[in-house]
């Protein structure tokens, strides 16, 4: 008993040190972001802010227009979430509950799409977007992400587990496939859609490379793009940079703390099935 207790103490200690190392960089950046620039550079460093200030944030909003980028990020992320909720459940239903020739072949394409690296597609996708006149538009940023293989995979898995009898009964009653989908299947998918919505929001919010390619003017920049431009221009003004990092990271942290159950479910269903 004594031995297990000692082992437990060691385990807890190790875990706590690990947690400090993992959360430390966020904590340090967060605390530093409310210090004046002079205090950030002071030696020896202060841990807790001696002078608390929001100047870094006001400068970020006034001079760098981070508010616009924040709004753009919200627009892009919500559009991507809406597209995925509708289309992934539709496609998932098609794979799970309807029969048609070539279904398995088409489904293997879903898996194949997951395997193609982003950098391989980037140039030809950009040429395509340019040909369609969508460079520097929201629609250009949003369009390629409206249906994601991972989302299709998740929704197919979930819908396949719904009882066939429900759908058969509705078919016998003469309901059309679309009515069945919208009035019977979709309402039952709410739990899976919560997870899917969260995961796609996260992906769209954090997405950096594609928006960086498509958005070429400040009015279209999403948060990661705006922050990276700032990162390139003001490499030494850490007060602004870390405040910017906090603006990108904070919404995700808040979502994560309140909805962590759905995140973990998400990896459990998508990662291992």
């Amino acid at each position: 008993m004594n031995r297990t207790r000692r082992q437990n103490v060691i385990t807890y200690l190790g875990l706590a040190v690990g947690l400090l190392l993992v959360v430390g960089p966020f904590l340090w950046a967060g605390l530093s972001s409310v210090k004046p620039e002079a205090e950030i550079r002071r030696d020896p460093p202060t841990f807790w802010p001696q002078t608390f200030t929001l100047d870094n944030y006001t400068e970020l909003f006034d001079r760098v227009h981070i508010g616009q980028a924040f709004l753009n990020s919200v627009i892009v992320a919500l559009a991507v979430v809406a597209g995925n909720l509708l289309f992934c459940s539709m496609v998932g239903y098609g794979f799970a509950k309807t029969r048609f020739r070539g279904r398995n072949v088409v489904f293997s394409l879903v898996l194949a799409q997951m395997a193609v690296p982003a950098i391989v597609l980037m140039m030809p996708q950009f040429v395509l977007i340019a040909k369609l006149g969508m460079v520097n538009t929201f629609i250009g940023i949003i369009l390629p992400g409206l249906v994601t293989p991972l989302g299709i995979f998740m929704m197919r898995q979930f819908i396949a587990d719904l009882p066939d009898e429900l759908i058969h009964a509705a078919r016998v009653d003469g309901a059309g496939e679309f009515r069945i989908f919208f009035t019977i299947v979709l309402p039952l998918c709410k739990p899976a859609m919560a997870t899917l919505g969260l995961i796609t929001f996260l992906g769209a919010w954090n997405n950096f490379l594609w928006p960086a390619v498509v958005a070429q003017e400040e009015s279209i920049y999403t948060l990661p793009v705006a922050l990276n431009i700032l990162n390139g221009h003001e490499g030494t003004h850490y007060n602004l940079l870390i405040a910017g990092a906090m603006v990108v990271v904070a919404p995700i942290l808040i979502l994560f703390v309140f909805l962590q159950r759905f995140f973990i479910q998400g990896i459990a269903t998508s990662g291992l099935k």
Partner: protein
Amino acid sequence: MMRARGAGLGWVFVLPFLLMFVVFYLGPLLAGLGMSFTDIRSTDVNSLLEVDPVGLDNYLRLADDEAMIKAAVNTAIFVVTCLPLTIGLGLAAAVALNSGISRLPAAFFRLGYYLPHITSIIGVAVAWKFLLEPEAGLVNRLLGLVGLDGPAWLQDQSTALPSIIVMTAWRGFGFDMVVFLAALQGIPRELYEAAEVDGAGRWSRFWSITVPQLRPVILFCTVYSSTGFLQFLEEPLVMTGGGPLNSTLSASLAIWKQFGVGNYGYASAAATVLFTVIVALAVLQLRVGRSR
């Protein structure tokens, strides 16, 4: 009759995917392959007829390009070091969380460890640049407290890539941990009890029961992570821009830079090679992992 109707509609339901697949994935993939055999540049996008085929020239140029070779070497180093580091950390955290500590603290630690994985790479990179800053950075100041003189981590050729490797493992191990945790909970208790009766210590139980039982999951994490690590791009792009002196230039970043200066044909050839390597390696890993 009813079946026939349902059959037609099945296609309608998967149509959003098919359209997207053909227009934004299959089409571009083939176009990229085609572009790799031409001299297309960004300026040719509006006059595609002026593009000339150049055969294998782009591919042959790759072999003579010092930056590309450096990028390939860096990528190999990155994958070979970051992969065991990430999986090792993930496994250690999962085993510690599964070793009988109470549920609430376990959930708390799991939450914390998973956090970096879901935060924006730009946010994380900025936070790390701030930590590693030579003068004002916390790391060098802490080293200074114990009398050590820390290097300029990201500006020094010998420490820049290792810094990015550590950051990537730090950011990614939480994912592996969650996957391992789920698998650990599926190992039958009796196996451990039997081994304990036989007098096996903690360490030997870990190697003779935990690791073999986790083999399929370790294989999954290896394939999944190495596929991702082979494409690493955002980390050096944001933290070092590939420097100093290409010491953190990755294959994907080199392609990104060629794309940026408009060499679409050449960049496509490099991307095709990278894609081939990624697929070949994944197939090889699955073969080896399953046969043993």
